[in-house]
């Protein structure tokens, strides 16, 4: 069974040779190819080379597109800062207030260099790994995208105190998001991963998640031409999982390492795939034995759950994570063995 078959079989709920394993190694390819990060996050050839190295080194069952939301903000005019050891961040948002939104020129996914970087990286990855390893395109959902353009504080203030401004912005963001996501699917992405901050119970109340996040996601996801994984973005998501269940195109939920997997299964029902596993950003602070032990505990917890993928929660696995800790995840899945329907 290759990785593509393993993931599709997980989705279909059929017997597996072993669990699919999906550590988030978008960043880690730069370490394996000794590539400076500014080049890695602007040159699609360098990025695709890094992901080839990830596949060769770790044989993950999912490869990830650039996990670099700041570069999408940059396409709108936000100023980006590149680091030596992590994905880029936004140094200065493109606009400082919701009133400035109308001055923005929305970037064209077919022509803007910042967006073409993502598209070309996926095309190259698809060309090399098509049919063998699924490619996950990680994108900011429409409910979070404005934070990359005006900063999280200004967007939070808009969502909290300016319903009209929020709607005016979403009227433009949703079509942009749909066009970009569908372009990435057409370029070869197998599915879209959406880390959802403005639906997270640590960020917003249930009322905001229900009245703002869910309708916006519903509108956007109904227009997508491929499957979606909703991601917890680095904090427990269980308390709002019911509000995210049943959205169009959504086939899976990526959970925080603190979320109770059994409770999550009860909330989402029997058919959705759950992604769960150790905290990715913390992986380098653990020993190999600790990683393997934690993975085995998660696999044991999900022994009878056919729709489950072992992954690293949170953001990217950091560059200084020892390779043996990453190997430990797949080894845990291999030693755990096959999964019966």
């Amino acid at each position: 069974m290759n990785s593509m078959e393993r993931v599709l079989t997980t989705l279909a709920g059929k017997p597996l040779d072993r669990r699919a394993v999906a550590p988030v190694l978008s960043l880690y390819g730069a370490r394996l190819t000794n590539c400076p990060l500014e080049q890695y996050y602007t040159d699609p050839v360098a990025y695709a080379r890094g992901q080839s190295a990830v596949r060769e080194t770790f044989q993950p069952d999912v490869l990830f597109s650039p996990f670099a939301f700041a570069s999408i903000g940059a396409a709108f005019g936000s100023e980006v800062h590149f680091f030596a050891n992590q994905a880029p961040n936004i140094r200065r948002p493109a606009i400082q207030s919701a009133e400035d939104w109308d001055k923005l020129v929305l970037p064209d996914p077919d022509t803007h260099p910042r967006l073409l970087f993502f598209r070309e990286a996926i095309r190259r990855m698809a060309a090399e790994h098509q049919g063998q390893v699924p490619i996950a395109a990680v994108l900011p959902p429409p409910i979070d995208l404005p934070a990359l353009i005006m900063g999280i504080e200004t967007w939070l203030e808009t969502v909290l105190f300016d319903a009209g401004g929020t709607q005016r912005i979403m009227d433009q963001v949703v079509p942009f998001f749909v066009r970009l996501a569908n372009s990435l699917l057409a370029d070869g992405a197998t599915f879209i991963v959406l880390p959802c901050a403005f639906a997270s119970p640590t960020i917003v109340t249930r009322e905001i998640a229900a009245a703002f996040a869910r309708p916006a996601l519903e509108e956007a996801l109904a227009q997508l031409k491929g499957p979606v994984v909703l991601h917890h973005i680095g904090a427990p998501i269980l308390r709002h999982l019911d509000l995210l269940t049943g959205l169009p195109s959504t086939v899976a939920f990526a959970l925080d390492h603190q979320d109770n997997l059994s409770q999550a299964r009860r909330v989402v029902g029997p058919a959705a795939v759950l992604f769960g596993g150790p905290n990715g950003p913390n992986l380098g602070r653990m020993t190999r034995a600790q990683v393997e032990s934690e993975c085995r505990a998660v696999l044991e917890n999900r022994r009878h759950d056919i729709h489950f993928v072992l992954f690293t929660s949170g953001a990217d696995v950091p560059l200084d994570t020892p390779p043996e800790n990453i190997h430990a995840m797949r080894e845990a899945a291999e030693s755990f063995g096959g999964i019966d329907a």
Partner: protein
Amino acid sequence: MDIQQSLIERIHLGDRVGANALLDAWASEHGYECLLAEVLDPALILIGEEWSSSETFTLAQAYVAAKVTQDMLDKISARRISSFGELPPKGSVVIGNIEGDFHALGRRMVGTFLRAEGWIVHDLGNDVPAAIFVDKAQEVGARVIGVSAMMMTTARNVRRVREEIDRRGLTGKIQLAAGGAVFRVCPGLAEEVGADGTASDALGAAGLFERLWKRSVSKESDA
């Protein structure tokens, strides 16, 4: 329902306008000079306790609390009266995001809540090198430096502030507080980067700074 509970209820609802109206009405009767000490500060303590112990309190609600607090600080400032009546300020503290970190929201909320507690806050902004933190603390006589970091990679840069404090012979005299989302999800990280303390959220910063300030004074007295 007392004024504090009414205020907390409005903050829960995200009702900034209602919270302002409530506080303005109270201040028109009792005066803005007592507002922080008698209403807002005790309410913020209750909200902080809820945030640190309850799973249902959100960043959005804490943000509303910070905005209402800032609204009141602005009104007090416009009236050129002391935030705490006749009480002197608690002292100067320095805050900022560590070098390489641009996530300002948490730091700004901490600054607002510290000001509401009577601290003179010197906010150095984002992407601040270690030496600048310590330079500023020495310049203004701050006993506490609060350093914010969102990501694991930038959190490790907090150690440089620790090293700078120690290199200048200021160990103990200047206390180092570290905060940010990553410190909450990675237990032991604050100690690992050499911080003297951390708080689980922005509202907990006021209590932490108070403890660290006292520790600094006590260490100086012992010396």
